[in-house]
């Protein structure tokens, strides 16, 4: 399942000092980003694994669970239920959309 950034969504990534090679915007330490549905928001802050999931999904990864697991150094099987639940929440809140939808 692939995801896109909705057209009416503003997003700002707070730049980390040591970005990873795979996802330049993902700080290895504590990724942080702000999302806002336009025009009124309100702005929402994501950090840590929540930010990693949004960044990986918004980059168009085919297998978000696999990519997130690689970044947070966990077994994909362990994190899959939580990641999938969180992706559903992001879609429901208008912060992501499923590709083709």
């Amino acid at each position: 399942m692939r995801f896109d950034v909705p057209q009416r969504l503003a997003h700002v990534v707070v730049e980390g000092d040591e970005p990873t090679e795979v996802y330049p915007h993902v700080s290895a330490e504590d990724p942080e980003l702000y999302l806002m549905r336009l025009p009124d928001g309100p702005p929402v802050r994501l950090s840590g694994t929540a930010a990693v999931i949004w960044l990986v999904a918004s980059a168009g990864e085919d297998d978000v669970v696999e990519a997130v697991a690689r970044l947070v150094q966990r077994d994909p099987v362990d994190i899959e239920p939580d990641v999938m639940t969180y992706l559903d929440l992001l879609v429901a809140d208008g912060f992501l959309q499923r590709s083709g939808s």
Partner: protein
Amino acid sequence: MPLDVGIRLTHASIQALAEDVGVALLHIKGPTLHPDLLERVESPAGLEGPLARTVPRRSSDADVLVRPSHLPILVRAMHAHGWVTKFDFEDGSAFEHAATMRHPQLALVDVHRAFPGIGVDPERAFDRLWADRVETPIAGYPCPVLGLTAQRLILLLHAARMSAENLGDIRRSWTDATESDQQAVQELARELGAEVALAAATGHLDRFRSRREHGLWAALSSGETSRRRLWWARVRAEPTPRRALRRAVRLVVPNRRRMTEWLGRPPTHGELARAYVERIGWVLAESASTVTRRRRRSPH
């Protein structure tokens, strides 16, 4: 939320709002600037040698320039979406060029209906700048911004009235620019009637001694601190006696909205009266000191 994040979200929010109500506006300064106009610093050397990176421009608010005829629509839409007018056009600078709007969750916005230093009709000026616009993502949302030449000019016009505060902008926008880039800026300034203000920023103001605005830009660019002299320079720069009189009065009458902001409540009649006396006082006091200096110099 970090201020620079709030400013980016604010630009995107205003752009979406403007699109919804069919308003044309240009995003200026701050995060809209071309990398050529940003300060560059070198990071410690890596394997391939020193790494240069640009430093985002520090801002305290988001700036937009709206098509003047669309201004009432934009302000109405902003008010309907939770924005409040903090300072109206008449409450701001002596140029009355921008209103400041605030929102409970976003950064302040300066909504410009004109830009100080541009002499042609604001609607015509907007048309000219709009013709050269480019689209750039701010907070991931596509926003129309000034073309590179216009960005240089606007930074220079801004620097011209901020004296020594914006030497970096002058260097990056003008001194370090190629000859053809400088010619393009001068050509655009001619089209916009901004030659005098541009000359104030680039150190060529003497070429425009005969122009009405010369005194104003000489005062602003030299860091003039006498309020009386700045007052007179602004009054004298107005193109008609009617506008000069209006400006003279506006600059002396105390501003009720600013006083409310400062006091945290509306000023009383007494406070307004005292402020009026104080403002008249600085005009008269500085006028008196000028007369005294002249008498001392006089042989009689």
